[in-house]
């Protein structure tokens, strides 16, 4: 090991906290909100409340993972909530038509991925802003939902119901659903892809500077299109988990969900300019949102629309915090 390696290693150790600072901050906020709940309300600090955060937000975690990919490249995907709603609708409608559950799941995943891929292609090849393309995608997905059916369709398929209601007992009185396992698997897969594959490293490179990445000979086009396909896939899977959670398909499921997802990713420390952020942060962001929701439902006297205000305030606080960090590193 020569001198250069030693200094580099030291630099890396010194830089570590700086790099992870946003994620650590999110973790601190999570601990603080959860701590506040535990102090204020009896029965808040129970393992079941903690696992319920995962159970109630499994779909949000999956959506946030997809959004993290997109935001890491400096893009944005406003269609996630609508695509999730479309997925619940496709699942419910195909099951009602008597499709086997596996085929129905496959159809949902293919549809979501295809829609994402399509948006990615338009964004890349026509050089249209991601914001407006995914906005159109949002309209399209919601419109398709309403074309399938205006009414809510309930899911009666026995296999779906078994998966939805089945629980795994972790310890005495602490249970998880299968959705949580799926969500965690998605998180692990995303971490693997982002940090240990060429695609993932290119995602960070494109977010850091698309021009530099292209000049380095990285396949930027493939990645820019790919992240939207990933996000489409995650939206479809998140929609499936949501249909398990609600046991119905409805075109107005998840209105405004894209905001929650973007808020979770931002609160999780991913820079909206791209290139910086971790999937783990996004998961923590979802947990913070979930805790706020639980806190408000525990309080009882506060109406549910306080959730939106608190999320807005948290979002603002974290954006300011990001600005501070960016300014300092500049």
């Amino acid at each position, binding site marked *: 090991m020569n001198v250069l390696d030693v200094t580099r290693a030291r630099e890396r150790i010194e830089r570590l906290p700086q790099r992870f600072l946003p994620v650590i901050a999110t973790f601190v906020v999570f601990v603080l909100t959860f701590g506040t709940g535990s102090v204020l309300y009896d029965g808040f600090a129970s393992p079941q409340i903690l696992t319920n955060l995962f159970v109630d937000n499994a779909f949000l975690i999956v959506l946030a993972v997809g959004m993290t990919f997109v935001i890491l490249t400096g893009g944005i995907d406003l269609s996630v909530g609508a695509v999730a709603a479309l997925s619940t609708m496709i699942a419910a409608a195909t099951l009602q038509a008597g499709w086997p559950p596996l085929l129905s799941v496959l159809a949902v995943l293919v549809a979501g991925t295809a829609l994402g891929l399509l948006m990615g292609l338009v964004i890349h090849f026509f050089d249209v802003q991601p914001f*407006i393309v995914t906005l159109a995608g*949002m309209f*399209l997905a919601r*419109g398709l939902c*309403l074309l399938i059916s205006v009414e809510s369709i309930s899911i009666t398929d026995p296999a779906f119901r078994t998966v939805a209601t089945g629980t795994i007992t972790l310890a005495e009185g602490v249970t998880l659903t299968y959705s949580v396992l799926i969500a965690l698997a998605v998180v692990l897969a995303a971490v693997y892809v982002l940090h240990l594959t060429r695609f993932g490293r290119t995602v960070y490179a494109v977010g850091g500077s*698309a021009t530099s990445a292209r000049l380095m000979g990285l396949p930027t086009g493939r990645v820019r299109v790919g992240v939207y396909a990933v996000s489409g896939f995650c939206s479809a899977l998140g929609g499936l988990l949501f249909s398990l959670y609600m046991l119905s398909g409805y075109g107005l499921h998840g209105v405004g969900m894209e905001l929650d997802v973007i808020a979770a990713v931002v609160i999780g420390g991913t820079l909206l300019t791209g290139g910086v952020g971790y999937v783990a942060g996004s998961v923590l962001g979802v947990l913070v949102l979930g805790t706020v929701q639980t806190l408000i439902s525990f309080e009882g006297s506060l*109406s549910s629309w306080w959730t939106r205000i608190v999320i*807005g*305030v948290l*979002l603002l606080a974290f954006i300011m915090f990001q600005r501070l960090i960016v300014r300092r590193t500049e």
Partner: protein
Amino acid sequence: MIRHHLFWPVAALALLIVLNAVVNPAFLELRMQDGRLYGGVVDILRNGAPTLLIAVGMTLVIATRGIDLSVGAVAAISGAFACTWIAAGGHAFTAMTLALGLCVLLGLWNGFLVSVLGIQPIIATLVLMTAGRGGAMLITEGQIITINDPLYRQIGAGFLVLPIAILISLGVLLLVGALTRGTALGMLVEAVGTNPRASRLAGVRSRTIVWTVYVFAGLCAGVAGLMISSNVSAADANNAGLWIEMDAILAVVIGGTSLAGGRYSLTGTMVGALVIQTLTTTVYNVGVAPNAILVFKALVVIAVCLLQSPHSARLFGPRRRAASAPHRSEEVTAA
């Protein structure tokens, strides 16, 4: 003529109107009754007034390379506040003034985040979009507030030969046109949108300009919110102005204003808003299920974006070259 930037939007509008006239011959009829003009076209104007007004504010914001997602929430807050004030026994005039004052404050807030703190516009206004509707619900305490005030009803449902709402919107449009195109203001706005840094170095007060356009967008959204709630004499914090930011952005984009900033067309915005509203009316008129309207809008947006993109500009010959989309990283270093 095909190369004029308004050719496609106007063609689309004409096509839609012809389609309506063919399906429903009574569509083009106009009749006077009690000194008021009625007819299918007047309905489009009346229903499109809030969208047009918000789109005018949005045009200037987009011209500075920004975006304001919070307009729908601001409109909801404005309507909620005014109706709650009137329901509590306040005068309609005070209610409207205070509601607009509140919207100016919200616009100041957006402008502060974007111009002073340098936060990306999408995100800065997302904060208010998320929290704003919650705020509106807080004002109305979750109720739909219904009121019965003749003066307040005028702004959204009143007539002065033409509906008062559209007169207000067109008035604002003309005023903004005169102010920005008659003076150097419009050029400065475009300069800030083209390159904020260069324009600042050239002595343009880019911070003040950016701040002002957000305040103006907030004010427009406020008036539109009054129109929406006055039209139905009720404030619905959940649904008032829902998706209107999308309609407004579409109107601006259809009108040929580039989302990359630096170039705007108020006439285009007006045509765009009319196209959006006529499209909505057409879908009802033609008898397509109203549910399909979102699919239609999506297809229109995609078509317009593809037509406007630099790629197809090359395909269709030397139309006005659209500025290529800026990279986000550049946007931030420049901010």
